[in-house]
């Protein structure tokens, strides 16, 4: 039957060893070093193809509204930004006054 085969294929894709993952470098400023794995101010993440910036934020355990500025490959981006292999992401916390 067709359906079980489909499920098998989907299961296969979710397995990191079988899937062509993408690697994204993340740089964070100041207080964002408390994010998962970012104590040096940077980290590298292996993500599923089709991942977006918001998935990175979830992986890093960022809080809602915490990230003020997102720079993807030198350009301002938002949470929906689509990620590709080798991308450089910079994250800054929100700041408005002082």
């Amino acid at each position, binding site marked *: 039957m067709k359906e079980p085969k489909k499920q098998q294929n989907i299961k296969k894709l979710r397995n990191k060893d079988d899937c062509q993952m993408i690697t994204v470098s993340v740089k964070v*400023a*100041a*207080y964002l070093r408390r994010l998962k794995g970012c104590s040096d101010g940077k980290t590298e993440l292996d993500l599923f193809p089709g991942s977006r910036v918001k998935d990175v934020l979830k992986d890093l355990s960022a*809080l809602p*509204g915490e990230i003020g500025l997102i720079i993807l490959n030198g350009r301002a981006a938002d949470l929906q930004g689509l990620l590709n292999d080798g991308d450089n992401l910079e994250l800054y916390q*929100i*700041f408005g*006054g*002082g």
Partner: protein
Amino acid sequence: MSYGYNGKILKINLTEKKYEISTPSDLFYRRYMGGRAFAAYYLLKELEPGVDPLSPDNILIFAASVLTGAPAPGIPRFTVAAKSPMTGGFGESEAGGSWGPQLKRSGFDAVIIKGKAASPVYLYINDGEVKIKDAGHLWGQPVAMVETLLKEELNNPKIKVVTIGIGGEKQVRYACILNEASSANGRNGFGAVMGSKNLKAIAVSGTKSVNLFDKEAVKDVSKWVASIYRDNPISATLNEYGTPAAIAVLQASGMLPTDNFSSGAFSGYDKIDGDTLKKKYVGKKPCYACPIACKKQAEIDDERFSVDSVYGSPEYETIASFGSNLGISDLNVIIKANELSNKYGIDTISTGVTIAFARECFINGLLSKEDTDGIDFTFAEPIDLLKVIEKVAHRDGFGNLLAEGCLRLARKLGNNSEDLAVQCKGLELPMHDPRAKFIVALGYAVAVAGPDHMSIPHDVFYETQERINNNGLDSLSFYEPITDPAKKVKAAVYGQTLWSLYNVLGVCDFAYQPRGIISFDKLVNLVKGITGFNTNMFDLMEVGRRAINLARMFNVREGFTTKDDKLPAMAYKPIKEGRLKGAKIDKKQFAESLKEYYQLMGWNPETGVPYTSTLKALDIEWVLELINK
């Protein structure tokens, strides 16, 4: 029985060496609540229009609020106000630290100072007792020393002191007032006003706790903040880094003022950012009852000079003003410049922006080494900045011209140099580029006391759904993100009204939403819990609105018109470098938005004057009799 406030206002006449105690009605406190509103009320009623701000005729007011002194976080602030030596209009400046709460403990809600003492004096207010004492031995003393000497002399280690330094004594036009050596009523030159009255300091102490209506309600807010401030990233960043964390963010955003606001990005930013400065922190200087403790102390290891950590560590504004905006990336020089500014009592923003103006003039050949006492004003040698600050504070040589601020200096220089002076109404702009933030641009042009980055929440808070859902703005009727400048007037009006309320109440913008973590609900509970007033956010916003309108009418009486609600020439020139390269204010859009602002405020869009119906709705139509006189 009053809760939250003493019901007493101290009025001192330095010329006659007399004082009296005024006891306004409960209705006065209910309607005006504190800070800017108290100040505007008394300046309208008791100051003659047209006086010279540095003459004995000016009136200097220190106003706490119905909340100040209560044991709750983020409400330590008090307002200093007078006719401003910088703008000639309503002047105000707020500070944190501990002086405001201690004033309340001494038995008074505000102090109003008239006249001029025959020779230098200080005031000592202790548990309701008032003394005017000789300050000859304090005149000339640096700021931190004054508090030390007074504690000894008065044999009272509990006093809190507001004081001026040499800058105020010499009436540097933008001299400031400090308490605890690093909490400044920075802007608008009230240090000069104090100096012009021969008033060196005001020491306050007392044993009177603020009377609380509902202790438990107040405790609830304190408990909540204590439980969460370390984990919430907004308060935690302030707790760990302080405001300097902003340097990296604003650099990445392309809005870090560089070279007298010509650019928004500075190549040396990483040498002066929050990460670098954090390594020099040796302590925190919390304001009264606040665990967030955003203010820090720093020490340096430098063979060229040392720094007294009592003067704190530079805030974001100071780092940008003495750093990127002057092309300086030597952090130790910036820390030393901050120390000198606090020691002598001069505003780091106005000092830096005036020097930046002179630097650009020097680079363009409008000033030469002959004019600048031989100092190379490119600051290729950053340490030369320290010489200049000494000269400004002492009004020495070229420092005497710099001490007048960039607009007055530009008028002296002529040659169209006024286009290079980054100011509104004669007061230098703070370190937030209006070309990058349209709401801030509107705010700068219309702010009653001159351009003030803390008079209006910035554009960034309204920009994404996530932010407005988490920072409280949805409860102020903002349901969708706003990015189009044409749609920003509502944000300018409501935001400015909210932060006007915060200035009235002495609330810290860093502790309460949208910039801080404490919600409007908790603020309402706090006001109710402290004062017993039957209030809510609608009523409190009206308090904020009332204060703006009072101050606006003061300016109307002093002759201000819509012509004064404008941006400097720089706002219409494109940002040269950085992510926002090319950005500038659209003249037509700005003019349209400004008209819309007047309309939404209930002011005549042709004259900028509040309609009578607006004043009536705020119960302040009594102002009209004073204007028409």
